């Protein structure tokens, strides 16, 4: 006897339709899965057998053959457990064969028959909708995620619930729409930063114009502390961006059950030991990397020169195009990666440079090697570069700084202006003059000039000005990369 059901495989961020076909024949007991299953998928046999037993269904001993079609596509992960179990039950006529029509399913089985959530349910649900399937059988935890895609989820806690639902014996419990019910994740507040007015200003500009920001300076001056406060002053995601980001985070299994819809810009801070594949994505069936997880949000690279050079150089493509293309033997994927890059670094390997009280002990060779790590091409992509000096004792004893709230409001207002009439904010003739003078005097490349112009426009938007005045250009010029980082 034969039965079929539909599930979805993830290729990059895309869901591909996979048919699970099961043949159930009386004979010598055997259980085979074909169709390029990986190790986790192969082990579904054990979980499915145990799960069916836990649902108190006794199957006759039989020869079971599972085929995952298309057979040439690699199947990875444990999300095939539930569809395999359902197809077997249908093939064994434990549930009506027709009941699986119009349904897709995804989920992992526990040995006691409970259904566990897996990553990528949003993408799978979107795949189901595209394929004209109206319902998705999934773990109860994944139901709100599936609902986002406009598919009716059937939330399940246990395999026995699936069986009784498909037999028509019971209706599944309704999904309580949970979006926005959980508390939003708390970001650290700018209030904690004392002094550092220049760096705070740069942070505000970075937030308003989505500029890449590099904070340099000796250790202990608050570079990382400042960088971590950037997400707190960013406005929430636009409605169309939310689903886009949620889909990525769903594939990575990063969504919280309380707040499946991502509404705030993501913030990713990979450790500096991260490999190139971890940063831009990779694996035999390519998976998104940190650059993609930070899509529409912030990617913080703390201690920039400590990252391996290939990882840093690989970031140049997404910084330019907003996408990462990962080519592997197993396939070629294009991941979105339009993020705002924020990085921190010391001025030399020992860290003492820039601190008047300590003497730098780095040899010229070490210093040269340190600077070589950061190519001009990469440094060129930072719109704002700020050297954070050591704060004086009286600054640290000063009152708390401005909180994030008013800053976020200013940022939101500036962003709104930049979105609606970015083209209308033009440089005044005097501002143009100043920019030309600067290009003559400073080592500014064509890209550098465009970057200064862009930052100047953000300064003007933040000031609520109708045109870019010379003082806006001048301020933008003061954040260009200092000579000690490039020479």
């Amino acid at each position, binding site marked *: 006897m034969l039965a079929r059901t539909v599930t979805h495989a993830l290729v990059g961020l895309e869901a591909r339709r996979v048919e699970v076909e099961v043949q159930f024949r009386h004979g010598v007991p055997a259980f085979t899965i074909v169709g390029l299953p990986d190790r986790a998928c192969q082990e579904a046999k054990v979980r499915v057998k145990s799960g069916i037993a836990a649902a108190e269904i006794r199957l006759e001993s039989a020869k079971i053959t599972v085929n995952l079609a298309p057979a040439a596509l690699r199947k990875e992960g444990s999300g095939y457990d539930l569809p395999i179990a359902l197809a077997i039950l249908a093939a064994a006529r434990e549930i009506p064969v027709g009941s699986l029509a119009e349904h897709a399913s995804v989920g992992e089985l526990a040995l006691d028959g409970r259904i566990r959530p897996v990553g990528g349910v949003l993408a799978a649900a979107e795949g189901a909708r595209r394929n004209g399937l109206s319902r998705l059988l999934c773990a109860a935890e994944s139901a709100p995620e599936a609902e986002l895609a406009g598919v009716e989820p059937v939330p399940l806690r246990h395999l026995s619930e699936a069986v009784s639902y498909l037999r028509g014996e019971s209706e599944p419990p309704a999904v309580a729409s949970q979006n926005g019910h959980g508390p939003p994740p708390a970001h650290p507040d700018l209030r904690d930063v004392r*002094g*550092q*007015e*220049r760096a*705070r*200003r740069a942070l505000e500009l970075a937030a308003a114009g989505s500029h890449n920001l590099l904070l340099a*300076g000796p250790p202990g001056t608050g570079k990382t502390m400042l960088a971590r406060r950037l997400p707190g002053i960013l406005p929430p995601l636009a409605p169309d961006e939310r689903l886009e980001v949620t889909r990525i985070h769903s594939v990575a299994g990063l969504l919280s059950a309380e707040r499946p819809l991502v509404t705030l810009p993501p913030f990713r801070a990979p450790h500096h030991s991260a490999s190139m594949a971890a940063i831009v994505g990779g694996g035999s069936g390519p998976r998104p990397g940190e650059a993609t997880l930070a899509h529409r949000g912030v990617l913080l690279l703390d201690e920039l020169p400590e990252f391996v050079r290939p990882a840093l150089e690989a970031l140049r493509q997404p910084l330019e195009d907003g996408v990462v293309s990962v080519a592997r033997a197993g396939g070629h994927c294009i991941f979105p990666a339009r993020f705002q890059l924020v990085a921190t670094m010391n*001025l030399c390997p020992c860290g003492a*440079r*820039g601190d*008047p009280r300590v*003497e*730098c002990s*780095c*040899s*010229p060779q070490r*210093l*040269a090697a340190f600077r070589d790590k950061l190519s001009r091409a990469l440094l060129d992509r930072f719109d704002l570069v700020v*050297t*954070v*000096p050591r*704060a*004086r004792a009286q*600054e640290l004893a000063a009152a708390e700084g401005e909180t994030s709230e008013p800053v976020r409001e200013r940022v939101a207002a500036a962003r709104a202006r930049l979105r609606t009439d970015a083209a209308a904010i033009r440089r005044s003739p005097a501002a143009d003059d*100043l920019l030309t*003078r*600067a290009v003559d*005097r*400073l080592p500014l490349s064509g890209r550098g000039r465009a970057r200064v112009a862009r930052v100047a426009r953000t*300064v003007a938007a*933040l*000031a609520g000005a109708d045109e870019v005045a010379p*003082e*806006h250009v*001048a*301020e*933008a*010029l*003061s*954040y260009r990369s*200092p*000579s*000690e980082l490039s020479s």
Partner: protein
Amino acid sequence: MRDELAVAVFAAETGFHLVSAPESGRFRRFAAGFEGQAYRAELDRRGLRFVGRSAPGFPRSLAAIFDPPVGIFVRGTQPLELLDRPSVAVVGARTCSAYGAQTARMLGRELAQAGLVVVSGLARGVDAEAHRGALEAGGATVAVLGCGIDRDYPASHRELARSIVRDGLIVSEYAPGVEPAPWRFPARNRIIAGLAAATVVVEARERSGALITADLALEEGREVFTVPGEITSALSKGTNALLRLGATACTGSADVLESFGLEPPPGAEASPDAARVLELLPAGADELGRALRLDAGPLAALLAELELTGVVVEAEGVYRTSR
């Protein structure tokens, strides 16, 4: 005269340091087989020159020292008279601080502006900044190498060397192909001190090569200036010790120019805002903002204007006057 070239090439091939023809059979045999004409033609082809000690173009101030080289190799198209013009050596630590780098650049620029030739050693740090300052002002600068005339050492200064070749001269007592070696640098320093009428030490540790240059300059009776530094900084130990021994303090290019009987070039007029900033320097942007009661944005604009007009320079987050 041909003999001098033979000595220089012999020294290069044997790795000796020679300031006169040695009395050895080995040298006599070498000199007998040495083809001076061909060698000079080859130098010419590579854009190099050799000036023997007895030749008319040999710099007079260098000929006057205790142990002048048998001759110097010269790279660059400028006339040799450049080496006889009034010149100042600006030397100092390779791993200098931002203060040292800025001071060296400022001195290089202002001394060159006043018409002096800036002599230094193409090394990292103070040396390179002094050369760059002079080039920035469109002035002349001379780099003295501690290796063969055809080498750019350190390699990272290849571009700088190219600019010097265009607007100044590169000089070495070593023939093409000689590798840099630690003992050659003190020998190189005597040429720096010998070429220059005065030497300015910008930053030096307790046992710095720059102090050797200063000692040699003093021995030859040349003026030695020293830029004072913070007494707590290791990078100022050497320079402050020189001051204690009686070197002339250099508090700006005017001090050096005065000894040449030259007037410092006039500085640009500063606006009242700028004047307030200049009084507070050196300082970080945040300190300035607090002292001037200016927000970070307008302050950044003001500082950038001052940087553009060349009144102020920033390094490692600290702003300094560049005059």
